[in-house]
């Protein structure tokens, strides 16, 4: 697997499992059996704040981060060491710590916290299985300089009120009783210091200031919620550094995408073809439904003038619940996953339930991917129309 494919796979499905003895792809660090991408010159996505560029919104961000703090409190048992890998802790202890932190003990609080834990697990910030939690590999990507801040936080976080009642309170006992599941097995060690300088051959040509501009533009392209204005980043305005950016992206299986005077990045079409989809069947089905209701139907009715896969026309939740063949349980679970991944954005509509529109990830589709999406929808909804016949004929010609 090339580095570009490895990066694409890690971006599409989370930290990449690495076989024993397999080489770590450039731009990634090996953390136990996983390869995690790191960023050039030791920056983190926090850099976007300096440029006043918004990252994708984090669902229930305050709550999610408080639960992550509770996980840290329980799993980072030795503050003289790095937070990751830390120790394994029972979920109940994390919930107790969270309860002590926010001073609420009701069921709603518990449900919210469990939801936050699930989101943290889905995004590899924690690993949760069989009633136990440990820190996920993303915790190893915190810069070492921030450890002091976190240690200070750990010291002033309250101990769980039911701490003495927790059956598995002894760390050794927890270790001994820990599940055999490989996902919770203690990783050996590792932090991101050893990351190889992936882009040095490209960036060394620049002086310090220009290099920082290129790195900032790279981070904005890869992590901003929306395409960024060309005028905001010198490296995007200037064709020469923009070419370097394109090369940096190409090494990670990505490509530059231009939308008038705004830029973002997306999966390179050839790399995407080999990477394949990581979304589950229910999630893809629900996403298709939202695309039909929010884009295809408004387009057919002349309500959507822009040639875009984003839309202000929300798909009502009731429409999805009542007028589709999907079971409600699967629908709700899929909506949660899609929302968390930024594939759907929720639109509130006053007192009513509101609805969903395609999320910011649809900015990141290449021209070819957007055209293929249009064709796939036409082939599915009107397979016997002349338009579908024309699509099939074109593809046949293209294949030959």
């Amino acid at each position, binding site marked *: 697997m090339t580095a570009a494919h490895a990066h694409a796979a890690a971006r599409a499905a989370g930290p990449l499992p690495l076989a024993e003895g397999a080489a770590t792809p450039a731009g990634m660090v090996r953390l136990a059996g996983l390869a995690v991408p790191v960023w050039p010159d030791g920056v983190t996505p*926090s850099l976007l704040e300096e440029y006043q560029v918004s990252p994708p919104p984090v669902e229930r961000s305050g709550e999610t981060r408080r639960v992550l703090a509770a996980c840290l409190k329980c799993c980072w048992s030795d503050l003289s060491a790095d937070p990751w890998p830390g120790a394994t802790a029972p979920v109940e202890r994390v919930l107790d710590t969270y309860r002590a932190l926010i001073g609420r003990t009701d069921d709603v609080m518990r449900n919210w916290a469990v939801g936050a834990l699930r989101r943290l697990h889905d995004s590899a910030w924690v690993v949760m299985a069989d009633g136990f939690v440990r820190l996920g590999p993303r915790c190893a990507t915190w810069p070492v300089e921030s450890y002091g801040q976190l240690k200070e936080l750990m010291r002033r976080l309250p101990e769980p009120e039911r701490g003495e009642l927790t059956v598995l309170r002894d760390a050794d006992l927890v270790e001994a009783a820990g599940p055999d599941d490989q996902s919770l097995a203690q990783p050996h060690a590792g932090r991101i210091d050893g990351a190889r300088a992936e882009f040095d051959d490209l960036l060394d040509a620049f002086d310090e200031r220009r290099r920082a501009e290129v790195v900032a533009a790279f981070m904005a392209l890869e992590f901003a919620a929306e395409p960024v204005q060309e005028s905001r980043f010198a490296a995007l305005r200037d064709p020469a550094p923009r070419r370097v950016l394109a090369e940096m992206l190409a090494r990670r299986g990505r490509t530059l995408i231009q939308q008038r005077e705004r830029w973002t990045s997306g999966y390179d079409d050839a790399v995407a073809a080999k990477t394949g989809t990581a979304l589950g069947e229910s999630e893809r089905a629900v996403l298709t439904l939202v695309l039909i209701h929010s884009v295809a139907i408004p*387009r057919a009715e002349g309500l959507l003038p822009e040639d875009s896969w984003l839309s202000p026309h929300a798909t009502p939740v009731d429409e999805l619940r009542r007028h589709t063949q999907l079971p409600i349980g699967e629908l709700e679970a899929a909506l949660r996953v899609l929302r968390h991944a930024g594939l759907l954005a929720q639109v509130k509509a006053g007192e009513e339930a509101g609805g969903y529109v395609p999320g910011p990830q649809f900015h990141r589709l290449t021209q070819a991917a957007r055209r293929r999406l249009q064709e*796939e929808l036409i082939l599915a909804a009107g397979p016997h129309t002349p338009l579908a016949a024309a699509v099939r*004929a074109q593809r046949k010609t293209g294949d030959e």
Partner: protein
Amino acid sequence: MSEQPLTLDAALSEEAVLSTYRRMFAALARDSGAVVDDPAMVDIAETLFAAFAEAGEEWLTHEQMRFACRAYPSDQFDNRLRVLKGLGAVREVFPKPNQLRYRASFTSVVGLMFIRRMMDDGGQSEMHRLLALEDLNVADPRTTMEQARQSAVNLARAFRLWALELITLTTGTIEELREQAPKLWGTEEIARRAQNLHGTILTRWPELDRVCTDLRAAIYAYSDASRRAAGRLADSAGTTRNLTLLPSETWRTFAQTASKERLAAVLDGFVFDAPAPWHDPAAIVRAVDESPRAPRPPSPPRRAPTCPIQAPPTPSTARRARPSSGWPSWPSPRWAGPTGWRCPTCSPPTGPPPAACWPT
């Protein structure tokens, strides 16, 4: 009817409606100005027929008709009623002088339904119906060879004209093609039905071989023109514009009836990002500090306040600062201390401390 100014889009839309009317009734019109020049005229007729359907056996008087069409200006109503009466679509209940009650013609109502259908799908459903009827006709033992020949000739002519219009559109502007083609191009179903009909005629009357060859050629030409038009649109359209070319009902039907597997297959092979929010340590600390019962960060050691303005006095500091006698107890805002008291920092020469020093 509406007092609002006519926008460019509205004018274009009205013109499209009117051009369809003109084309539909060109064969019957006495002169080129014989078709309505305002789509509202057709709406008036439709409102009138709806009122007649509701009225029952008593039918309607002139006043009741006017009331039913009260949303339209009276000159438009009078004009429409005059034409409808002149053509027999609205007639007296009993033909005699000074008749007050009127009835509507069933034929005209059916005609209006036909007009609306033609407006919606450009005649594709009519073609389906026509083909279904012709299929029944040619299978009927009573149908003569001459009737079958006429049927085949008419269908061949219709398909040829249809194909020619599509070919002309295909070589014209893309905007016109996008607007008109979906109403003209046929589905595979229409071509299949037409070929079935052709097969039935040829099997029953082999003598009609030549007419059937013409019909077959016309069907093929039509299918080919449909594919060409669709191909050009597929080439030229952006990355969502072709979605316009399927009617919204097709999309709705698909969304409502498709299985999970069919829906999911649309996004097979598309790669999207896994959720990867960034939780910065500073953001985690901030979230904890903003929690309802946040553990307080340790505050730096406090120095003794030197001036009540800089640090509002607490009762204990106030007590310490109070002179030996004659002071009201805190937190009274009434300050009536003896003259000569001096604040150690702001040092008013005489009188009480400034108002900002008072406790609130």
